[in-house]
């Protein structure tokens, strides 16, 4: 024991006054699978935290060596003469007859600036070995979402750095945009790239990013944390981790803990971006808990309040009015589908709650179109009002153009028999698909996206073989970044595509074409 602890103990002894503690208690009557039945606690509240008394009957020295810390439970069922609670920890530490103390408090999580760059569990406790939080504020895990009067409509864009999303499915700060798709279609990548892209925002406008990993493999979360650290994105991010090995109760609580931390920053007038990866696993954890709590099962064995589970969570994402500080929480929930079935129970629920969805398909992914966004069925219901004028100007007809290309794609195998107009449309579509491709972990600032889409929209890539478009685009981006910083800065600053900017861009594109004529072989 170090000397400072000894000194503190001496101080405690000097200031000691004998006292007694009164508590409202119950006793464990049954325990199993993460759920305990408790006799007594008749005055307890729903969602109240209870404390399992582990020191009873143990000698002082043994009670002091409780390395795993206190063990808490969360009351989820109030019954006639007993209660049922989910154990927020290791169930094997509980025995029948154990005394359970009421705390009189609903579950809360620490939140504060010092959590930035840290990895915490679903209870807000640090799990990255960097020590405890010293000055955190407690935020309730369950809180009523802001009301209509306190809200403001979405008007500020949240740039993902992904061309196909920022151009065709724009997201605004305060929006809830679902990322949906089968396994291994790049859902997490879209979310992580969005977090990384926030480093391109000025520090005072940069959203705080919260990544909530639910039921994920620890190795995947470790890889994501490392990627964020490498990309200097961890300094404005918080990772809430409830891995697959965590009890179902913690997997169920993790998204609420994440949003509670987000609300701390939103209440201070800051913008927050929160990723729930993924809510299908949270629904499965909640189904497990509900069945163990003997709640009646409904469709696919989910309990009756499964819709409310997600709606009350996602409703907490909003943009607050200026009177309330003007902060926002943008939510990007992720849902994993089975074999592209978006009409399953949980996907339809979350689709109906959110303000749009980004649909990723295995078909596109396997074709090499990455991010594999199916723009035909992806939609953003409120984001377009937050899109910058410059982006609107270059992305206006893009969705329609791509939809037409997809329709014509089937005729490609009869290419020789096509009329010139159709062949041109297919050629333009193919090049546009190539332009929209983007590497994993390489989000682009909005001004660069505008410049590239402007070039694509003005047939800049028309003379480039389809297979070379991505490489030429990368060279163009490098050229613009090096030689035409001013033009890019003007697009970023004004958010518009003025005549002067257009002239500068045209000049830059012409210069690039002349300097790299070998990249543009004539048809």
């Amino acid at each position, binding site marked *: 024991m170090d000397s400072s*602890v000894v000194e503190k103990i001496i101080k405690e002894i000097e200031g*000691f006054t004998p006292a007694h503690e*009164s508590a409202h208690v119950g006793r464990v*009557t049954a325990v199993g699978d993460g759920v305990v039945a408790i006799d*007594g606690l008749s005055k307890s509240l729903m969602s109240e935290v209870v404390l399992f008394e582990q020191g009873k009957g143990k000698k*002082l020295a043994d009670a002091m060596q409780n390395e795993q810390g206190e063990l808490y439970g969360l009351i989820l069922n109030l019954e006639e003469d007993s209660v049922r609670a989910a154990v927020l920890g290791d169930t094997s530490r509980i025995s029948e007859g154990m005394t359970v103390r009421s705390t009189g408090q609903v579950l809360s999580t620490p939140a504060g600036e010092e959590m930035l760059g840290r990895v915490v569990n679903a209870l807000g406790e640090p799990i990255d070995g960097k020590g405890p939080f010293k000055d955190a504020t407690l935020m309730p895990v369950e809180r009523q979402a802001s009301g209509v009067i306190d809200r403001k409509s979405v008007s500020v864009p949240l740039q993902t750095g992904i061309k196909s999303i920022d151009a065709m499915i724009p997201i605004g700060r305060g929006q809830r945009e679902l990322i949906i798709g089968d396994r291994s279609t790049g859902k997490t990548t879209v979310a992580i790239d969005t977090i990384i892209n926030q480093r391109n925002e000025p520090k005072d406008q940069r959203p705080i990013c919260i990544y909530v990993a639910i039921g994920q493999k620890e190795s995947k979360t470790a890889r994501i944390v490392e990627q964020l650290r490498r990309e200097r994105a961890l300094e404005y991010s918080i990772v809430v981790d409830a891995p697959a090995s965590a009890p179902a109760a913690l997997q169920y609580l993790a998204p609420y803990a994440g949003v509670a931390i987000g609300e701390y920053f939103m209440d201070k007038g800051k913008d927050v971006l929160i990723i729930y990866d993924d809510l299908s696993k949270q629904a499965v954890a909640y189904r497990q808990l509900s069945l163990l709590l003997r709640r009646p099962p409904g469709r696919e064995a989910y309990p009756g309040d499964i819709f409310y589970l997600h709606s009350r969570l996602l409703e907490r994402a909003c943009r607050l009015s200026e009177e309330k500080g003007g902060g926002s929480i943008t939510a990007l929930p992720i849902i994993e589908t089975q074999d592209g079935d978006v009409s399953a129970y949980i996907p339809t629920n979350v689709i109906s709650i959110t303000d749009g969805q980004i649909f990723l398909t295995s078909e596109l992914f396997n074709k090499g179109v990455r991010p594999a966004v199916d723009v035909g069925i992806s939609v953003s219901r409120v984001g377009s009002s937050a899109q910058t004028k410059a982006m609107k100007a270059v992305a206006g007809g893009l969705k329609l153009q791509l939809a037409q290309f997809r329709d014509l794609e089937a005729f490609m195998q009869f290419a020789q028999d096509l009329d010139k107009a159709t062949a041109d449309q297919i050629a333009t579509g193919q090049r546009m698909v190539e332009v929209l491709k983007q590497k994993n972990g390489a989000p682009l600032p909005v001004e660069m996206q505008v410049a590239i889409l402007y070039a694509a929209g003005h047939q800049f890539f028309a003379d480039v073989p389809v297979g070379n478009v991505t490489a030429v685009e990368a060279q163009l981006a490098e050229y613009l970044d090096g030689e035409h910083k001013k033009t890019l800065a003007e697009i970023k600053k004004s958010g518009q595509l003025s005549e002067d900017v257009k002239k500068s861009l045209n000049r830059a594109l012409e210069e690039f074409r002349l300097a790299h004529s070998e990249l543009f072989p004539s048809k």
Partner: protein
Amino acid sequence: MAEHYARAIWELVLRGMTPKKAVQAVHERLIARGRAALMPHIAKALERLAARVSQKETIVLSIARKQDEHKTLAQAKSALAGLSASRDEIEVRIDETLIGGWRLEGGEHLVDASYKMQLLDMYTAATAR
């Protein structure tokens, strides 16, 4: 299932039926439904239920040493009054792990004035960074 039948018998007794009659009534119903094999399980569930109720009703005063009994009873007077329990209703138990002081448990109430609890609180306060 056995738990529910046991609770039913318990409720019948609480409503004034004699235990013998209550058990008989449930037994007859079980035979009629062809579920008489449940009877031993119901008996065990009833036993557990009775133990739980009795534990709930028992007021236990734990002390570290036998010689502290009188002194402790005087100290715990106000706590005992809160439980509206008389001296005769209290079961005194010796629990050496308490080190000193006392601990009173009855129904859903717990009053802990043991030295162990106070030392543990002190240790937690000193070691919390």
